[in-house]
């Protein structure tokens, strides 16, 4: 009986680990995220296209579709829809997720920083 219980617990844990999302998102702090957004403002702004596309309306948007911005073929063909998970993966290493992207940025390696930035973007980019 005990062995059976342990087996079921182990099976459950294994299932959980195997099916866990690629990125576990910590709760982000949008106040810290706004400070981090300064890093993005070299090339981006919330409401106008610059060296990079604007960020307004990004959540739920298909990558490569902001009107008036000249994207790389790689981004246009990426089939990415921006959400917390895809943004987190992209921000960690843009060129790894989208090889050929025009975004020449090494990435934000700290997971908490990414979470904070995404929390800010969720508030600041609402259409």
């Amino acid at each position: 009986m005990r062995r059976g219980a342990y087996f079921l617990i182990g099976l459950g844990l294994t299932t959980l680990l195997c099916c866990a999302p690629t990125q576990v998102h910590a709760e982000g702090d949008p106040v810290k995220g706004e400070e981090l957004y300064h890093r993005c403002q070299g090339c981006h702004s919330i409401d106008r296209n610059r060296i990079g596309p604007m960020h307004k309306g990004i959540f739920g948007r298909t990558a490569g579709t902001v009107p008036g911005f000249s994207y790389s073929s790689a981004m246009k063909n990426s089939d990415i829809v921006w959400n917390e998970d895809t943004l987190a993966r992209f921000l960690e290493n843009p060129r790894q997720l989208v090889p050929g992207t025009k975004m020449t940025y090494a990435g934000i390696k700290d997971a908490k920083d990414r979470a904070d930035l995404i929390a800010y973007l969720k508030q600041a980019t609402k259409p």
Partner: protein
Amino acid sequence: MTTLPPNASPTAFVPVRRRFLVGGTRALLSGAAVAMLASGAARPAMAAQTAEQIKADVDILNTALALEYEGIAAYQVGAKSGLLRPDALKLAVEFQSDHKQHAEALAKAVKQMGGTPVQSKTAAEYNFPTASLKNQFDVLRFAAGLEEGAISAYKGAIPLFADKDLAAAGASILGSEAMHWAILRSALGYKPLTLAFVG
């Protein structure tokens, strides 16, 4: 945070030593890395790189070039705004000159590597938020924001260079942007910012 009145002279709050640096040691600070970049001469390091690496480096240079063109255009808008007092105008023109030198060096490097330099845009295409620029303080703060952004952009791009000579030149330009940012912050009357690591 202490701030200057909107139309105060920006050099009023720049320490005397830094005022000397703004005007005096410019030539001494252009390093070998940037001189190499600016010459457009062939660099031995390129021979060791793959075509893919060279293209990736050209893309980074072109992003930096686009950034510099935006900065040049922004300072032009600021200079022509009529909102800057003479000292501030002199500062804006000096900083714009630095960005022009950056752009020239970057464009030469792109061509030397077989790429096509990106072109600057028109003022209308840049779509700067000019309606929000009401006085000298607004103009300088806008410029400071762009310089701060440039620091982050270069910091994010430099690790991606396959060619370490280009990384060195990029770091030199980052240093220039950092000087601009620090001086503009001083001119705006902000408390001097010291950071162990720039994010």
